[in-house]
């Protein structure tokens, strides 16, 4: 695209918000934060919003729907961790503490929109509609990805860090070329922002002016490595400037702020405003995975501080205090969460049983002559074992 077009667009978006183009790209001076840790609504002055960065509250119906997903997400995280401890699941990178981010990333999207999650984003994947057992296939060790990515418009959970951001860009680009109005949310962690593919993805999205929202869950650690060893930037949201896109930071344990920000981001992107970078400040409350020992690199006191900022309790208090969450709704939500947890427990008790012949069926559209020979060798071995 010519530089005129680009500048016009930025100028237009910034006019819309009554701010300078550079101010449009720079995140608001303070992180956007609507709810206090105790669940009370912050005064307008304290919200971090400023001209060009205004964020109205979502509707009560939206909030209840999001809260339900939040409660289910927490329950699934904790159920899975229990299943891992019991040896019934191989590994689980829990997003305990980050569920508000998970829920907002999925709920801001419409049906035709795509989600690009990482290994940590099971709850987002579920929230977008994938059946819990399908989500957990890979963590169970059965197969690499257990759901139909095209049906759900959810990419496989990515392990090689930030590689998936480029795929998100490609999906958005293909949609744009066909004139489809698809928005894509592409997720990664704070550590992942250091990878080269992060840079290439943001740059491609900006140059091709694509509706991709890069959503960084800054949970302060990449396994053991703290943010300060990862970046010297004023904030990760400031990285947007270098690509000519807008960045924003938000309290990642404040579901209301997240919904407001992601909602606006999706709207702007769908209207042709180009890509955006959102940094959510949150915390990985548990170890990296069950295989990690977080006591080696952080203090209990630090973790405790974040317990006080828990996203679930915060939302619950807000809804209760504002009269949106009656006992009946609350019970229905709990029951739903228990039901999902039971599905997982029951599913994990079933023996997985994948036909080894499957190994050769999905390498190419048709097995090559070589693969047929190899499949025959294995089949012969298995037959002899049986005999």
């Amino acid at each position, binding site marked *: 695209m010519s530089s005129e077009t680009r500048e016009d667009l930025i100028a237009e978006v910034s006019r819309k918000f009554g701010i300078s183009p550079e101010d449009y790209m720079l995140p608001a001076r303070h992180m956007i934060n609507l709810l206090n840790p105790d669940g009370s609504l912050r005064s307008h002055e304290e919200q971090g919003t400023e001209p060009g960065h205004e964020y109205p509250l979502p509707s009560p119906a939206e909030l209840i729907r999001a809260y339900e997903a939040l409660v289910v997400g927490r329950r699934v995280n904790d159920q899975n961790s229990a299943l891992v401890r019991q040896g019934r699941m191989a590994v689980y990178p829990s997003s305990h503490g980050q569920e508000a981010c998970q829920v907002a990333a999925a709920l801001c999207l419409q049906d035709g929109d795509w989600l690009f999650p990482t290994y940590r984003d099971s709850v987002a994947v579920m929230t977008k509609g994938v059946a819990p057992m399908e989500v957990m296939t890979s963590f169970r060790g059965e197969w690499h990805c257990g759901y139909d*990515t*095209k049906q759900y418009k959810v990419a496989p959970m990515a392990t090689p860090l930030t590689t998936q951001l480029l795929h998100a860009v490609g999906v958005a680009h293909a949609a744009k070329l066909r004139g489809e109005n698809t928005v894509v949310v592409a997720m990664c962690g704070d550590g992942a922002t250091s990878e080269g593919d992060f840079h290439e993805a943001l740059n491609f999205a900006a140059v091709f002016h694509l509706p991709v929202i890069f959503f960084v869950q800054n949970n302060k650690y990449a396994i053991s490595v703290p943010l300060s060893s990862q970046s010297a930037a004023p904030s990760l949201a400031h990285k947007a400037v270098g690509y000519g896109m807008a960045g924003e930071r938000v309290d990642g344990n404040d579901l209301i702020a997240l919904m407001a920000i992601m909602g606006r981001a999706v709207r702007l992107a769908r209207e042709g405003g180009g890509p955006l970078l959102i940094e959510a400040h949150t915390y990985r409350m548990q170890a990296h995975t069950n295989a990690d020992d977080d006591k080696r690199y952080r203090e209990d006191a630090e973790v405790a501080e974040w317990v006080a900022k828990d996203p679930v309790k915060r939302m619950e208090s807000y809804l209760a205090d504002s009269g949106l969450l009656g006992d009946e709704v609350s019970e229905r939500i709990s029951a739903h969460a228990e039901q999902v947890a039971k599905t997982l427990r029951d599913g994990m008790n079933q023996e997985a049983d994948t036909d080894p012949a499957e190994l050769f069926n999905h390498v190419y559209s048709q097995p090559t*002559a070589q693969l047929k020979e190899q499949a025959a060798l294995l089949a012969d071995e298995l037959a002899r074992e049986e005999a």
Partner: protein
Amino acid sequence: MTATASAVNGNVSAETAQAAAAKAAANQPVTFGKALNTALADALTADESVVIFGEDVGVLGGVFRITDGLTARFGNTRCFDTPLAESGIVGMAVGMAMNDMRPVIEMQFDAFAYPAFEQIASHVAKMRNRTRGRLPLPMVIRIPYAGGVGGVEHHCDSSEAYYAHTPGLKVFTPSTVSDAYLMLREAIDSPDPVVFFEPKKLYWSKDQVDLEELAEQYESQRAAKAEGKARIARPGTDATLVTYGPSVSVALEAAKIAAEEGRNLEVIDIRTIVPFDDETVSASVRKTGRAVVIGEAQGFVSVASEITARIQERCFHSLAAPVLRVTGFDIPFPAPTLEKHHLPSAERILDAVDQLQWEA
């Protein structure tokens, strides 16, 4: 690479070949590069999900002009430049293929595909498998490769082994003008990702082929087409030279000299390294009892190693001598003035043939 070469192609019937030859005689010779360019244009025409992108492939037409005129003809949404980032190019292509496009991307030179290695090895190759077949990635990664053109460092690597070793990728490399056309069309239509290696030194080579006729032939035989067949580039009886891409012409040259000296060598052009055509290779070696495998890449853990290993596994009792290899040395590709010492030459191939224990 003459009319004979394309006529021997197993897919062309005798009459068709003759007719083609007659018609081609009336035409100007076509370059390998033009055949690729036409294949891209025909694919863009045939399938609107095909998109072409990469560095300098738009207005410039690529540094080798293989995409010349495509942006002008098809518009800059079908053929366009990207920012200068190979991982970005491949990664974006993955996403576009996920979303039902057929990207055909160009890596400017062999060694400049390396920044994209993670995307290729961890995603392009594995996506279909990861998703149990639900997310195929039909896409083509075009890579100009190999030496023989006096290129400077990082511009002459033969990197096919890296990709051939990576399950999930198909690896094609044409050595004739008509294969340049046909194989690129095949690669683009393949439901699997194909790494398409173009021998740089052949870009300007010419042959009498009628591209329109080839296009018709391709369209009509498409369904029946058996992908992954090797080609007997020259039939012979005394020993088999197995090779591909840039070395096919060198092997043919060696066979010609050998013929003058009374040795009748068969030359096999592998064409598709993956999938590999064991049948054609084994049949030839069982017949001749001797084989030399030739490849421009450094020999250690190379495609030539694989072919050598396969031949002795499958034809052991037909072999009169060990299978020998003639490959590039195990050194970084040399500077231009020295490359002639590195590249397999007809003489070096003939030396190897001489060692195939003819006395025994």
